[in-house]
């Protein structure tokens, strides 16, 4: 068991390093860097000024060195700005000390407390990357990447929690009902629903749901077509549609898997034995078939979570819900290097952690499976 965990952890680290390096490489392609220089230092600057700006801001050195700095295994760059003041990766203000200073702090809190200022060069740490807990600075949001990602994850966690609450029970119910009498009318009807929702991607179902239930076009207006207010106060009106959009897509797939597992279990000899023993159909399903039928769906649910994150990107953008997926879209649209890297790291960790959890849960549900023995 421990060996498996360690191996999985190793895979996780390797994948995270590989993926972030690819993202780092792509976002640091010369045209992308030029775009950053132009958006930061003014769109009218010349080629030479672009090169100068990149050099002054630490983008001038080899890619691998800068990647090392971002990871925190190499010392951060140090340079001079236009006025000869020292500047560098590690000289940026940490948590924006002084940013909360109100008017009462008066003039004396003036220039030194601005967000540009950081620790004195002599006191600044040599390395400040991911390993030191410094995720970098988001250009788009003008805030610490750590804070932006945390804010996004908080909103998305709320969304995903509700998605799972809606999706898992409804999918299992649908699958079990369909699978307990394979080929019956109920089975065909429910399977039809499951195939339909699994085959409708979020960008279709979301738009259709908004058009039907949230716009003046049909006059139904039961729910809100915007989930912005749900970030602070989620209600049935403002959170139903985004949750439903994601949940419907995942539900169809999980229901199909549950149905298949259920149908297979129902043909097993021990079920026939239970029936022959004189137990009611209800008891057979609930006490004998269900546990064995739920092993496969459990794995599928866990593996479904990374896929649902795709849906989160679409749904959060569609409903203006400022979570993790929306953050990713903004970061990618603006080539916000540090933020994109932060988002990538979190994505890799989420995907691999859910896989690990599915393996562990599998072993707990099925005593025949032993982990870590060859």
């Amino acid at each position, binding site marked *: 068991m421990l060996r498996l965990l360690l191996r999985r952890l190793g895979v996780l680290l390797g994948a995270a390093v590989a993926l972030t390096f690819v993202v780092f490489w792509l976002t640091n392609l010369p045209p992308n860097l030029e*775009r950053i220089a*132009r*958006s930061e*230092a*003014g*769109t*009218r600057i010349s080629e030479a000024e672009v090169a100068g700006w990149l050099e002054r801001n630490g983008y001038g050195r080899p890619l691998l060195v800068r990647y090392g700095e971002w990871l925190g295994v190499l010392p951060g760059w140090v340079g001079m700005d236009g006025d000869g003041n020292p500047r560098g990766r590690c000289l940026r203000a940490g948590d924006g000390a*002084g*940013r909360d*200073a*109100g*008017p*009462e*702090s*008066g*003039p*004396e*809190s*003036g*220039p030194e*407390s*601005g*967000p*540009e200022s950081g620790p004195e060069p002599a006191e600044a740490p040599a390395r400040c990357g991911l390993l030191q807990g410094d995720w970098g600075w988001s250009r*788009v*949001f*003008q*805030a610490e990447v750590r804070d932006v990602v945390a804010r996004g994850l908080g909103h998305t966690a709320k969304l995903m929690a509700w998605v799972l609450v809606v999706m898992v029970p409804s999918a299992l119910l649908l699958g079990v009902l369909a699978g307990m009498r394979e080929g019956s009318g109920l089975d065909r009807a429910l399977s039809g629903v499951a195939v339909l929702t699994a085959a409708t991607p979020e960008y279709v179902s979301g738009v259709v749901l*908004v058009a039907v239930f*949230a*716009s*003046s076009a049909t006059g139904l*207006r039961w729910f*809100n*077509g*915007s989930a*912005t*207010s749900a970030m602070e106060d989620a209600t049935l*009106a*403002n959170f139903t549609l985004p949750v439903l959009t994601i949940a419907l897509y995942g539900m169809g797939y999980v229901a199909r898997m549950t149905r298949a597992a259920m149908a297979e279990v129902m043909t097993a000899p021990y079920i026939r034995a239970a029936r022959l023993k004189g137990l009611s159909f209800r008891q057979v399903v609930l006490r004998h078939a269900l546990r064995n039928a739920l092993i496969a769906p459990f794995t599928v649910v866990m593996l479904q979570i990374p896929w649902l994150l795709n849906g989160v990107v679409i749904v959060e953008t569609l*409903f*203006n819900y*400022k979570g993790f997926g929306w953050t990713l879209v*903004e970061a990618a*649209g*603006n080539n916000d290097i540090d933020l994109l890297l932060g988002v990538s790291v979190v994505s890799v960790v989420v995907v691999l952690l859910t896989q690990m959890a599915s393996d562990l849960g599998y072993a707990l549900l099925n005593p025949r499976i032993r982990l870590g023995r060859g």
Partner: protein
Amino acid sequence: MTPRRPSARAPHPAALMHAGEVRAGRLSRREFLTRATALGVASGAAYGLLGLEAPAGAQDAATPVPGGTLRMNMETRALKDPRTWDWSEIANFARGWLDYLAEYQADGTLRPMLLESWEANADATEWVLSVRQGVTWNNGDPFTAEDVAHNLRRWCDGTVEGNSMAARFAGLVDPATNRMREEAVEILDAATVRLRLSAPDIAVVANMADYPAAVVHRSYDGGDPAASPIGTGPYLPEVNEVGVRQVLVRNPDHAWWGTAVHGGPWLDRIEYIDYGTDPAAVLAAAESGEIDATYQTNGDFIDIYDSLGWAKSEAITASTLAVRFNQRQPPYDSREVRRALQMAVDNAVVLELGYSDRGLVAENHHVCPIHPEYAELPPPVVDPAAARAALEAAGHGATEFELVSLDDSFQAATCDAVAAQIRDAGIAIRRTVLPGSTFWNDWLNYPFSATQWAMRPLGVQTLNLAYKSGVAWNETAFANAEFDAALAEASSITDAEARRAVMARLQRILQDEGVVIQPYWLALYRHATPRVRGAEQHPIYEHHHYKWWMEPAN
């Protein structure tokens, strides 16, 4: 010494002259009000010069009710040094705690804010500004003439990258150092400042009302103004999340000077929520009850909001969409190519298809008929066949052009209409539509693209900002010595009649050089729930928070 009250004396002679122009039908009433108040005539007196009664401040006689929260959609952008602001949205958030010296009203007049009054000499080279007394900063410091001089010094500092205010105060800037001439700004006493310009400038106070001219405290030293929000205004920033939302709350510990002068503020809280650039997302928010008012309603959405029962307010403007060429980038460095593309496009068709005829057809020279100095020229020639022939003659018969635009509905539709007409003329053209997050990173440098320009009270102001050689926002890369010279000349003539002769030259140069396809002038709209009062759309998108109030919910 008591503060001077120039407005109590006889009105400026030029104002009397302008009143004569209005009676003779040579000057519109709106422009008269702008110009007379810019010369130091109180707006009530300005109406009086025309023999009119000053209109009541609000259209409805209802008494404002204090309290309440107003929520509006707006792109919430990162704050920076006010003089480098390039978005009205940035200013509209910071207006909560930063006041202006003067304020441009929707009827075209200038309202004194931190200045109590101003007065110009006959040739507009010397200005006397009276600073309002009894104003305090929200940290307790008094607001004095020193603060006015400090802000003028900041605005005139042309060495700061992206400072667009320096171009507006060229008459105070020393060309050698690119900073303010210290002798140009004289503090006569704590309440009076005298400006001595190197060249006549009729727009000094109008420029002080423009949105990057927010007045900051002496302790402010660049960076995010919300980090340490010292200002004279009645609100304070509570939340400042870029791309998410920005919230202003009433500052309970600060007695705002304007309460006694202009009334208000009424609202306890103003929330700006970012829904991106997609108007459908804003509509969804409006239908969901997440906002009380739109920042702006565009195009087809106007009818939809009307059908929701929201109240519409309209502002007639000299705002426009300039479909411009960047002359530094081939093939648009060729005058023939630019002229040919212009000739292929009928502006009236663009207005109809791109903005549902909600505006006025324009003539490719970025001076609006409502500007006082507008000179009427023969309408531009539309001749698709000649356009095609001219392109072939210039060796670009087979070139495929590319028109880049924002994904915003009316901007995209307008560019589609322009491109479709170019295509109909037998010229190959490709359309690229970019989301705002990508588009604005590079707006000045696209070879052929469209930019929305807000209006400015005087025609020369926009020309100075956008078409003078080498200025910060010159996205056309237009550089023409003859134009620059004529523009300098026009900017020093106070008399609209006399200026018109020079304007005719300027407008003709812009047309002849094929600088922009400028198809129409926009009317601006805002929709709000019937509870929202005093928050009508403003011709230059200014949010005057102190006028806003909400009727209590039933």
